[in-house]
């Protein structure tokens, strides 16, 4: 028995962390948040050069053929370094949807191009994860209309992958007629989301998703695990910063970390977060190896991590005193990353509801 990440997974993860550490300082994050696309492009290119685009694409289509646990390890590293770059939609949800739902021809066409980075997907699944503002998707034959809110990873998208409320997934070309793209601004200005307003747009349905929600559910489960892993990394970074600060910062002639109040805040954060590693890994592993538990674990990983990391984000800010509240240290970029992750692909309450329903039948 071995419970933990493999050497390969840790190696890949460390590469991402190292790249972000060296290239994505808080100053650059600040520039990206202020919409400086040059820096955002550099980060994106750098991460793609490390191979994340082909991560989940099977080897026969030119990818690395790795699994969701691997992807979770990457997601954690991206969260740790506040990786201001598409990942969850473009390189996890999109290939999984096509692997699970595409015809042979669709797989051949799109998966190869994901692996070669010629095709990049934005992903709109909010119809399935708690639609807001009466957004609705209607599919009629080969046409799609309606609105998809909170489309992920749109900024480099050549195509969009959209699901309706029944889990019917299809592809539209970003250049097609009838698409109105509305940029949304969230608190996290380092990752972008948009709304798509679609009027009778050409739509290529993924064959296997016409009459089955199966693929859509798997894609959402994977997306949720990625968000959980991302928040895990982000929270760990915040704790590390808080602990370092508590050792350095002096008040009343002593390190603030010598006050029990501060020590206990740090210890509480760690006690909450430490088991989250195992939960995220286990849930990610379950996606391939424990099908009976896969959905439940994905739901619980997402909602539990959302709650734990919300608290970590608050407490680690508090440990920093006034410094935590400013832009000087930039701690808030991680605070906001955790805040956005919490709401994407279902709020904790919404996701727990799904978890409960899974166990009623």
């Amino acid at each position, binding site marked *: 028995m071995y419970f933990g990440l493999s050497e390969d997974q840790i190696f890949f993860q460390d590469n991402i962390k190292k790249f972000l550490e060296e290239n994505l300082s808080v100053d650059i994050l600040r520039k990206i948040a202020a919409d400086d696309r040059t820096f955002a492009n550099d980060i994106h290119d750098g991460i793609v050069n490390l191979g994340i685009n082909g991560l989940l694409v099977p080897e026969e289509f030119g990818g690395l053929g790795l699994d969701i646990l691997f992807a979770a390890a990457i997601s954690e590293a991206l969260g740790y370094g506040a990786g201001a770059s598409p990942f969850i939609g473009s390189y996890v949800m999109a290939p999984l949807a096509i692997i699970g739902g595409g015809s042979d021809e669709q797989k051949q066409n799109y998966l190869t191009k994901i692996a070669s980075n010629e095709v990049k997907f934005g992903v709109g699944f909010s119809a399935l994860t708690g639609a807001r*503002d009466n957004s609705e998707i209607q599919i009629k034959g080969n046409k799609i209309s309606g609105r998809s809110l909170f489309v992920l990873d749109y900024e480099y998208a050549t195509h969009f992958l959209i699901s309706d409320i029944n889990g019917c997934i299809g592809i539209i070309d970003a250049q097609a007629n009838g698409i109105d793209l509305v940029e949304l601004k969230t608190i996290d200005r380092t990752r972008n989301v948009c709304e798509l307003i679609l009027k009778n747009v050409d739509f290529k349905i993924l064959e296997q998703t016409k009459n089955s929600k199966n693929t859509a559910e798997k894609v959402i489960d994977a997306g949720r695990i990625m968000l959980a892993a991302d928040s895990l990394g982000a929270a760990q970074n915040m704790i590390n910063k808080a602990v370092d600060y508590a050792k350095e910062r002096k008040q009343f002639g002593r390190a603030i970390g010598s006050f029990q109040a501060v020590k206990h805040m740090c210890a509480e954060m760690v006690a909450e977060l430490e088991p989250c590693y195992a939960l995220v890994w286990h849930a990610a592993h379950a996606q391939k190896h424990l099908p009976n538990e896969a959905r439940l674990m994905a739901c619980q990983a997402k909602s539990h991590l959302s709650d734990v990391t919300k608290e970590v984000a608050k407490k680690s800010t508090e440990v920093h005193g006034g410094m935590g509240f400013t832009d000087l240290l930039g701690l808030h970029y991680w605070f906001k990353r955790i805040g956005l992750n919490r709401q994407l692909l279902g709020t904790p309450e919404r996701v727990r509801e799904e978890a409960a329903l899974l166990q009623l039948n």
Partner: protein
Amino acid sequence: MDLHYSKEYLDFEKEVKAFCKKYDGVTFTDASKNPLASSSSKKKKIQITRSEWQKILIEQGYFARAVPKEYGGYGGEPDILKSRIIATEFSRAKTPAPMGGQGIDMLVPTLLEMGTDQQKEKYIKPTLHGEMIWCQGYSEPNAGSDLAALQTKGELIDGEWVINGQKIWTSTAQYSQMMFCLVRTEPEAQKHSGISYLLIPMDSEGIEVRPLVDMTMKAGFNEVFFTDVKIPETNIVGKRGEGWAVANATLGHERGSLAPPDAIMNRVHMLIDLMKEEKLDGKPLIEHPIYRDRLMKIQGKVMASQSHALRLLSAKLNPGQDVKVGKMIQKLVGTELRHELEGLAIDVMGEIGVLYEDSPHLRDKGSWQFIYMYFLGLIIGGGTSQIQKNIISERGLGLPKEPKIQGVQ
């Protein structure tokens, strides 16, 4: 227990109601864009400046009630019950509250208590009228929770204070005309007895203000640098070396005023409205039992805080009622509660809750997200939650201090 108002107060309540009706829909020509500022109603009946509004309120006796006329106040007897009636009716009718801020809430009470006649004459009136904005220059890079460690230096040279040093986290310094400031003037004395409380015009030569952006992405506070700043010898409140006591008087005023429970209850009501409108999967959020329960649970806490405020009020009217610990918990409970409530609103809206700035689909000008973050700042500012807990346990409950701490303020 008797919660009835006597006839005098019932009449007063009627008068205030009539006033609120008369000024229904008043808006300000110089309103700030800060989402925290009370949002104005859509009917634009009466348009005036903020300062004019202050004057109307003072004339009516609804603001600065107990401040003597000669200093620009109403010149009445302090009457806590009337103050409460005013606050309640204004909040109910959504009539804009008088301006607050560090000058009005902290400096004016301090000057009334400890200022010289000349200081009272010079500063109180324009401050009450909103024409003189003050900032609080206490914290320094190495003196936050340990405020008494402050090092900004003041020397008396040829009848002038010459000030050198740096302040940080100074809210609104960039808009302020004046600063009340803690400065070390007696370097030989013990930590707490070497500090003086000085009043510094912000346009003095040698002051540099550098705005600091905070997590809300606004520059709510600043760094302030002093290089040979000269102010008159008389700009001192209290005696030399007694600034710590003067400052503590004002800190008490700040801690009471950061998160009043009535304001939190207003937000609860706004959230109820929001939850009737927002839908998840086609169903209003207020019909989702889980969100509804989270809201009701918070409302229960807010109600407790409101009732608690009545108890504190009663203790002021009836000497002998013991509320010592009850007063100490206010800042801790209020700021945490407000933060929690604003956070619930974000969850209620889901992804829409994290929209910000001028995003499409934004609700209530992004105020929920803004205040959620802002109140994390207030959990830290004005004495952190951890320091509040130290105060409650040590001063309130008489627990021994942690070893080797030189005194926690």
